[in-house]
Each structure stands twice: as C-alpha cells, then as structure tokens.
C-alpha cells in the first residue's frame, strides 16, 4: 500500500453540485482546485469556481467524465497531486483508482482493492456472508444462463429483484413480480448493466416487500480506525433511485442503530475500508436488516448526515487521504449527533411520465435561503440542461430539532425555490413531503409506487388562473417588446380609438389547451376570460410590479406573486407552488393534431439509440418495445403506439438522435 503524501492541489473528476461541493471543502482547507469539463459544461458553475479548469472532451460522459486517461493527464498537466472522484462516473471504478495511483497521484477514496471487492455485487455478498453480515436470500453465482437464473428466481420465489452484479445506483435493476415477465426484465437489466458498467452479469435477490432502505455512513482511516455516523433512511425512491433521504430513520432506535452500525463497520472492515463509504441495508417491518450493497464513495445524500453532526465529510475525506486519523471517535460522534435532517433531490424529470429525464435550460434559478436550509447545486442561470448527465440538479436539505420541524422547513424550501426552464419534480417532491404518510414516518420503498397509483403527482394542472396570468404576461411582454422596437409613446400602447375587441389567445400547458380572451383596461390592467375546456373563469388582473422574473399583480382584489421566464417557445410560470410550461398557440391552426398520435415513434428526448427491436415490415402489437434509447444515463423503452405494421425504421443502434426525431413509423 503506497504511503499517502501531502497534496495541495486537488483535481475534481466530476461535475454539477458534487464538484461545486468538493471545491468548497478544498478551499476551506486551503487546497487549490482543478475542475474538468466537457463541451456541455464550458460555462458550468464548477468550472467558474475552480482555480483552473481543463477541457476533457465532447459532451457524452464516455468522451469526457468517464475518460480516466484524460482526467489523469489533466491532473498531471495542472499539477494536481490528488483526484477526488465525487460520486457516479469513475468514483467506483477500481481500474481508474489503480491508474490514478500508478500515475503517482492520490485517489481520494478507498483503495482499489476495496472498490473491486464491493464492486462485484455477487462476490461482495459472499464476502459479507462470510463476515457475518446478514444478506438477502438470492443467487449470486457465476452461471449466468437464462434457464438457471429463472430456476433460481423461482426457487427463492417471486417477486424477485434482478440487479447488475457490477452496478449500483439503481441501474440494471429490475423488480420482477411473476415468471412471465422475467425474461424481458432480465434482458433489459443485462443490457443496461452492460452499458452502464461494461459488465452484463446480474444477481438475484428475493424482493423484500414493505421494507425500508436504510444505510449506514462509515468512515475509515489509514490507521485502521473505522467509525459509523448512523443511518440515513432512503426508502422513498423512484425507478430504484432515491429522491428523499432523511436521518435519523423513523424506524431506527438507538439500539438498532448500534446493531446496524456494528454490522456496517464489520462489513467495511472485511474489505479494509478507508475513507467514506455507505453500507446499504433493507430493513423489514419487524426490525431485521439485510446487506444490500456497499457504495465505496461519498453518497449524494451525505449532506443529511453532515447536518446532524455539523461536519464536513468531504473535509474528512481530504484529511484521511492526507493520512490523518479520523477527526472524531465513535463515542464523540454518538455524543455529537443531534436533530433531524431531510433532503430531497430536485431533478429535471417528469413525474407524470414515468420520471423521464427532461432537458431544457436554466432560465431562472433562485434557491431557498434561510436558517436550517441548505441547497447544494451546480446551477447557473443561462446554462443548458442537456441529455448527457444525471437529472439531479440540486439537493434541498432542511434541518430541525424535530422531524416535523425539518419537514416543515423543507416544505417551505420547496415552496420558495425557483427553477424555471426545465420540467422538474419540485411539485411532486412537495406533495411527498406534505403527505400524511410521509409526516407519519411510517412508509417503505413502495411509497411512490402506491402514491402514483393514487395519482399524487399527476400531470401539471392547467388551472384557469395560471392560464390567465400567462396570458397577461405574454400580452405584457409582447407589448413591451413592441414598445422597445418601435419607440411608440407609452400612452399609445394598447390604446384603440374605438371599443376594442378582446385579444384571443390559445395556450397549451402539457396536454391541456386553454382559450383566453384578454381585454386591456388601462395600462397594465386586464380582464382575462379563460376557458380550459371544462369551464370558464374570468379574472381582473392589474400588474403592480414586473421585474426580471417576478410578477406582482392584484388578481380580483388579491395580491399575488408569480415567477416566470420565457424562452423561444415557452413561458414558464411558477405560482402557488406549481411550475408549468406554456406554449402560445394563438397563431397555430386550431385543428393541428399532436404528432405523437400519428403512429410515429419519436425520440422523447435527445439521446443515443442502444437497441432496435423491429425491422420494416414487422407486425407489432401495441406496447411492444421497438427501440431502446439511452439518455441521461437511463434507458427508455419506446413502445409501439398501436398495433400495426412497421413501415420504416429510421434509426440504428449507436446513433445519436435529437428529441422528436422520428425513429420508426407504424401503420395501424
């Protein structure tokens, strides 16, 4: 084991909020920082904040943030002596860690052997069983034949979880409820795993229904000390990825914490763990816990733990990488923990469309600010949000003396935070945090599945009031543009010499279409009638103030504030906790159909084709998977919109496609 050497310059091999986060801790320790970036991140916040920044390559991660060779080269060029991998990308890549060390640099994380030991989920499970750590019953053998896997699944009983042996982060993971769906799920898990980790092997685990996801933060130093910092409850997940994390867990008491902590430390010790790591467990309703996997890196949700201990865990990573001992002992830590913290992940995704990642741009960004509030992000206004990286845009973390205090503060943060220009899960998160079930603390990993079944998120409601505000904003902004362009005297704007005819506007918000009639009643005052198809509403709206992204208006006697941003074809509005994107369709033919119903299969977003399962002439059934698209590190199965015959296939594996590109045409 090479002895650590001191370093004063750190290269952060990551992007987004975690890169920003690491840069901050480095600075606090007086270390200079080096950022790396892809074509897509030239103007990104982490690039601006770092002492220097080096270009890696094109936007796709495979050509930039996954290019270990270029990252090491960048470190050598820039004079960095250590590399912090963040999370994701190369953070759990043993080969990269080895290459970093081989280049004479320090890898801020565990030793490559530890990563490798835990990286192979099957081998890790065997090792854990040997170390006496409880594991979920399942299959983690080398025989990967379909028939054996199916037999194993049947032996342990459905539902069963298929997991990528090499993976983590929910990728390559499939829950299979019955044998009929096993083959398809297996194939797609394998392909996703192969894509994400370069290793298509899978393991099987009996799915624990109604269990919670509880993980233990551990830390080890090079002197052989290992401590745990208690648990985080990450039971609220979508697509097997966490979106709400909290500590302490409502289901863990001091005694259980001590037992789980001891098991986690034992697990870490079994792989000679150094640095920050997390042991993930499934915790059943009856208090049994099973080892799931170990993440050999800093977690996204580490901030929850930091809030409980008033600690900077990145600082700990850096100190341990310098060879220093752990700053605190287990008993010191146990004495230090206090209060509650909850984190939500603000993601550019559409909860109403199976959480599909969304692209766009940051037109307005104003995180909530206040005591007991923390927002970690890498956003700057004006930056695009492309299809290449994870949809996580910001983490909102709230702290409180009680869980309820933290919950209320977080709810306020979700209300106050403004992100316009890309669809997000903000409203969905607010509904989760506001729900009685979440408030009760009594829930498990099937929370979101059940919430969605009882449509909680649902499509963004196109309320008449919101439509009226949008109509007023469009009218006002266009009027202002006319004023600027023509230099017309202000008293002529909106003036007509004879009784005016209300301006008709047709607005689209998601699937809903609104017809508005807007009448000017003096400068900045309007009466808007809105018909949203189910009813009409009329609003008297007077603009009080309109600056940058903020509209203040009197609506039917009530003072209201809305935030907005406009790009080339959409107006984004946030009002009363709901963000919606609106298109002005006033000049579009009324009968124009939505093209998705034409029997054309279109790319839902920018991405890369990874599989094409049909050929021209093939007869397909509605719902049959025709094309698999990878975008934002996720696989989207694009299914036939109807029964029919494939007329043309206009894409091929490996091809990069843009959103709305026609991939195939099906004649019904």
């Amino acid at each position, binding site marked *: 084991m090479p002895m650590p050497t001191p370093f004063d310059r750190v290269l952060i091999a990551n992007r987004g909020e975690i890169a920003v986060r690491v840069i901050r801790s480095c600075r606090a320790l007086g270390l200079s920082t080096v950022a790396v970036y892809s074509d897509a991140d030239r103007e990104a916040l982490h690039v601006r904040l770092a002492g220097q920044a080096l270009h890696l390559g094109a936007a796709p991660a495979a050509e930039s943030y996954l290019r270990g060779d270029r990252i090491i080269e960048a470190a050598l060029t820039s004079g960095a002596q250590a590399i912090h991998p963040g999370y994701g990308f190369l953070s759990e890549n043993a080969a990269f860690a080895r290459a970093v060390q081989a280049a004479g640099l320090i890898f801020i994380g565990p030793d490559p052997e530890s990563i490798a030991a835990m990286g192979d989920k099957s081998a890790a499970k065997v090792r854990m069983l040997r170390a006496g750590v409880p594991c979920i019953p399942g299959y983690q053998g080398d025989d990967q034949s379909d028939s054996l896997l199916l037999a194993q699944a049947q032996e342990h009983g459905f539902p069963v979880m298929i997991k990528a042996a090499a993976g983590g982060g929910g990728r390559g993971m499939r829950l299979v409820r019955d044998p009929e769906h096993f083959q398809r799920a297996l194939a797609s898990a394998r392909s996703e795993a192969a894509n994400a980790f370069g290793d298509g092997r899978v393991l099987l685990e009996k799915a624990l229904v109604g269990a919670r996801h509880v993980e233990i933060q551990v830390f080890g130093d090079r002197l052989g000390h290992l401590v745990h910092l208690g648990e985080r409850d990450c039971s609220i997940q979508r697509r097997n990825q966490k979106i709400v994390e909290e500590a302490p867990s409502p289901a863990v008491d001091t005694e259980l914490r001590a037992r789980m902590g001891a098991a986690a430390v034992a697990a870490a010790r079994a792989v000679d763990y150094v640095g920050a790591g997390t042991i993930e467990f499934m915790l059943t309703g009856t208090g049994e816990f099973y080892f799931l996997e170990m993440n050999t890196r800093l977690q996204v949700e580490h901030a929850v733990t930091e809030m409980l201990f008033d600690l900077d865990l990145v600082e700990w990573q850096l100190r341990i990488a310098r060879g220093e001992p752990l700053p605190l002992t287990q008993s010191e830590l146990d004495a230090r923990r206090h209060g509650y913290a909850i984190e939500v992940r603000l993601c550019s995704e559409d909860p109403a469309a199976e959480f599909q990642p969304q692209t766009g741009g940051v037109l307005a960004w104003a995180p909530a600010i206040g005591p007991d509030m923390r927002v970690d992000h890498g956003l700057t206004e004006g930056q695009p949000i492309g299809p290449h990286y994870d949809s996580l845009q910001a983490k909102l973390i709230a702290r409180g003396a009680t869980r309820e205090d933290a919950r209320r503060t977080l709810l306020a943060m979700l209300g106050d935070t403004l992100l316009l220009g890309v669809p997000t899960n903000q409203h969905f998160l607010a509904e989760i945090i506001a729900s009685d079930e979440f408030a009760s603390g009594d829930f498990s990993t099937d929370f979101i599945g059940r919430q969605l079944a009882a449509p909680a998120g649902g499509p963004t409601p196109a309320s008449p009031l919101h439509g009226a505000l949008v109509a007023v904003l*469009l009218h006002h902004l*266009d009027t202002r543009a*006319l004023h600027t362009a023509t230099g*017309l005297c202000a*008293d002529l704007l909106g*003036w007509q*010499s*004879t*009784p*005016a005819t209300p301006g008709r506007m047709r607005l689209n918000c998601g699937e809903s279409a609104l017809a508005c009639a807007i009448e000017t009643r003096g400068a900045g005052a309007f009466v808007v009638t809105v018909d949203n198809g189910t009813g009409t509403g009329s609003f008297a709206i007077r603009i009080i103030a309109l600056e940058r992204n903020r509209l203040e208006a009197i609506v039917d006697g009530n003072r209201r504030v809305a935030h907005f941003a406009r790009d080339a074809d959409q107006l984004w509005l946030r009002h009363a906790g709901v963000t919606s994107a609106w298109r002005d369709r006033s000049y579009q033919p009324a009968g124009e159909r939505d093209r998705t119903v034409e029997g054309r299969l279109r790319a839902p977003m920018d991405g890369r084709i990874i599989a094409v399962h049909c050929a021209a002439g093939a007869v397909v059934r509605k719902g049959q998977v025709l094309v698999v698209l990878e975008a934002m590190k996720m696989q989207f199965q694009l299914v036939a919109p109807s029964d029919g015959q494939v007329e043309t296939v206009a894409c091929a594996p490996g091809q990069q496609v843009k959103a709305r590109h026609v991939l195939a045409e099906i004649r019904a």
Partner: protein
Amino acid sequence: MTALDSTIDTASPDFARNRAEMLACLAEVRSVEEKLRETEGEKAAQFRKRGQLLPRERVALMLDRGSPFLEICALAGYRQHDDKDGSLAGGNVIAGIGYVRGVRCMLNASNSAIKGGTLTPWGMRKILRMQEIALAQKLPMVSMIESGGANLNYQAEVFIEGGRVFANQAALSAAGIPQITVVHGSSTAGGAYMPGLSDYVVMVRNQAKVFLAGPPLLKAATGEIANEEDLGGAEMHARIAGTAEFIAEDDADGIRIAREIVASLDWNRAVPPPATGVAEPLFAADELCGVVPVHYSLPYDCREVIARIVDGSEFLDFKSEYDTQTICGRARIHGLAVGIVANNGPITVHGAAKAGQFLQLCDQADIALIFLMNTTGFMVGTEAEQGGMVKHGSKLIQAVANVRVPRITVVIGASFGAGNYGMCGRGFGPDFIFAWPNARTAVMGGEQAAKVMDIVGRERFARTGTAPSPQEEAQLVAMSAGIVAQFDRESHPLAATARLFDDGLIDPRDTRRVLGYTLSICREARARTLKGNSFGVARF
C-alpha cells in the same frame, strides 16, 4: 417655450355640466359602435361552427399585442342605404392603422358578420379612403377578405366608382406599397380582383372562394357544371392557377402567414428614430370634456384645449396681440414639432392674414400643421368686407390648400361655411381629419339658415305690400322649424362621419393620442423613400 396656464376651475358647475354633456355626446357615438359589435356578435356561433374567426377577431389577431389601433371611418354609412337603425354602420368594412410584426400597416377587413361583408356605396368609399391613406402615408395594406361582393340593391352606386378600388390597388403596387391579402371566405366576381391585384395572397383552405363566376352563374352562362373548389378553392389557386402564394389551414394560420410576410418586408429599415424625453401635458387630458362647452355658441379659450394636448403644455403663441380670434403657435406632440391653428371665434381679416402667414412659416420650416377647428365661419359685415375679408380669406384658403407639410384636422366644435375650408376641412385633403362627438358641420348654423329663409320669405310679402295670412304665418314658422331640424340632422357628427366628412369620431380625451399617432405616421411616411415601378408587380 412658455407653458400655458389654465383658468379652468374643475370644481365649477360649468365644468361639471360641460363634462356631463360631452360624455353624453360620446356615449351616443359609443352606443352606435357597441350596437354594431352586438350585431356582429350575433353571428359568432355561425362563424365558430365553420371554424372561423369573426372579422374583428381577425383584426385583433393580426395586430401585435399592445398595438394601438386607430380605426378609420368606423361609422361610415351610418343610417344610409340598408342601415335603417345604425346597427349596420361601418360600410361592412373594418379599417384602421395598427402594428403588424412591428410594422405600421393599414388594416382592411371585410365585415362579413354584417350582411356577408357585401360592399355598400359608403363601404366602397371607405376602401377608397383607406387606399388614399395607404398611398399618402406609405403604409403596407393588409386585407382580410370575405365578402359577398357588391350590394346589388345599390349596384348603380358602386359599379363604376368601385373600379377605382382596383385602379388604386394597381397604383399602390406601382408606388411600391405592398398589399398583403388573406382570403378568409368568398371573394368572387369583381371581388376576385381584390386578391388578384394584391401583391401577396394567402388563401384559407376549404374557405377561400375566388372565381369570376360561381357554379349557378357558370351553368347559366355556358352550361358547364363545376364545383366551387375546382372553380376557385384555395388549393386550386395555390397549386394550379397560382393566384395564391400561400395556403393556410384556418383563419389564425392565414393571419400568422400574413404577419410573417409583413415581417419579411423589412419595412422598418428607414424608420426615423423615435422622439425621446416626451413630457406629458401639465393638465390632464381627462379634463378636456369639462373644459369645452358642447354647444358652439358658447365661447371659450382654445388654449385650454391646447394645454391638454401638447407636450408640457408648452405653446409659442404667434401674433397673439394681432388677432385674438384665430390662435396660431408652435408646440410639440409626442415629441414631434407642430404648428397649431385654432379658433376662439370667427376668422377675421387679421385672423386670416395671421394664419396664412403662419402656415407659410410652417411650410418653410417643414413643420406639420394641426387644425383644431371650431369656427362659425369667416367674419361678415361692411367692415370685414371692406377690410378685404374675401381677399384675405382667399389667401388663407390658398395657404391651407398648398402647404407641403402634413396637415391633421380635428373638428372640435363648429365647422360652418368657409370656416371649414379655412381650417382644412375634408375638401382640402388633410392627411387625417377626425371629429369630436359634439362637432357640427354644415354650410351654416341651422338657426341662421332658418332666419335667412324666414327673412327672404317675409321680404316677398313686403315687396307686394301684403302681410302673411295666419296660415302663411304658420307656414313660415313651420319652414323655419323644418330648416332647423334638417340642419340639426345633417350637421350631426354621426351624419357627418357617415358621409366620410371625417376619418372618424374620437373621444376628446384621446385627442393627444390620435394626433401623436397620426403625426408619427406622417413623419414616417415622409422619411420613407419608396421603390416604385411603372406597372405594379404582376403575378405571372
């Protein structure tokens, strides 16, 4: 410049009475406008069913959001021909000046919600006036056509003179003023030449019908049996005949295309920079209704009006000591320099000379003229006649007719006799002329005319030395009353605007806006060099 002061007490009973009376006059005009819109609204369901917009909705959609819209001759033909009760005013045409994609345009929409948009004699004259303005002010003409053609009840009145509409279209094209026409519905027979003579034609699919003879007439004429789409549908014109450059899916789409055509003209290349730092008048425009007595017989100082119209209420009073009945002076409106001529009474010998000189000075300095007309005419009497009233009046009329600067007239009260000429009435071809709802326009006042006729009648008895019998006396009285009634009716602002004596009746409180807007239109026109040609652009 010195700011005008106001001596008006806005709390006085006179002010309140003036205001109430003026608002009543305005309400009468507005009620006609509203009635027209109601009549149009009755057709809403029918238009919706066809997937169409009402004509006024087309205009609203064509206009930029927040654009001003100065309607032109809104009540043309009021109570004329088929319009028995005023509910069909406007000549079945909607006209006005507004912005389309940032370009100031003349908008012309068939009012197909009224009698299918058939052309009445006054509607035809309104179109001629629109074309006249478009030509003089170099405004692209954007038309939204859906018309059943000429109203056959009055074919004799529209047939020959209506040819001028087409001649003007050719002239506009030749002058370098683009005409963009969206055909929203029928435009047949002679009407087919409206799109035919336009430079850009957009036709709405399944709605536009442009042919010389429809199926019935065709069958009658030649025996051929054909359907409307083959004879003149949008697709036929776009694909085969080539009459249409663009095909639209519906009204909104057609309007979108027309807007894009306007945007593509790059028409604002040579627009002069807008005036900046414009000061509002010191006195509120809203007070105008209370400042002015509705009846022309009650005198007031027209500077009270000027103070509520011009920038900062600043007015350079020209030769104020020389004549006190005709007021002349320089000011700015919306930052644009103007010379104002206004009346405090009849035009005297001195007044005519003063105004004539002032007009020439404005012409010399190339400053636009505003006439605020409120005069019972030129001064009469031995003194005036011997002082050369006819001679000096003629000088003024010559100057009014021949100045080369923009002239904009607002009839704010009386417009009687030669006063109408001396203050640039319609006959003198002002660039624009509008009237307040209290305006009175006639060869002379009704009472005056009645008195003249009464005197003439009685003189007949005097010559024969007889006295009128009680019956004859009653006839004389009835004749007087009849003349007063006739003059009242004919000099009424609605009657005047019906006959296109003006370009429209305006709210007195909008006067500054109307003047500022039309001044900038004139200014822009004079700054623009058109690229004309000899024959107009031919569609090949």
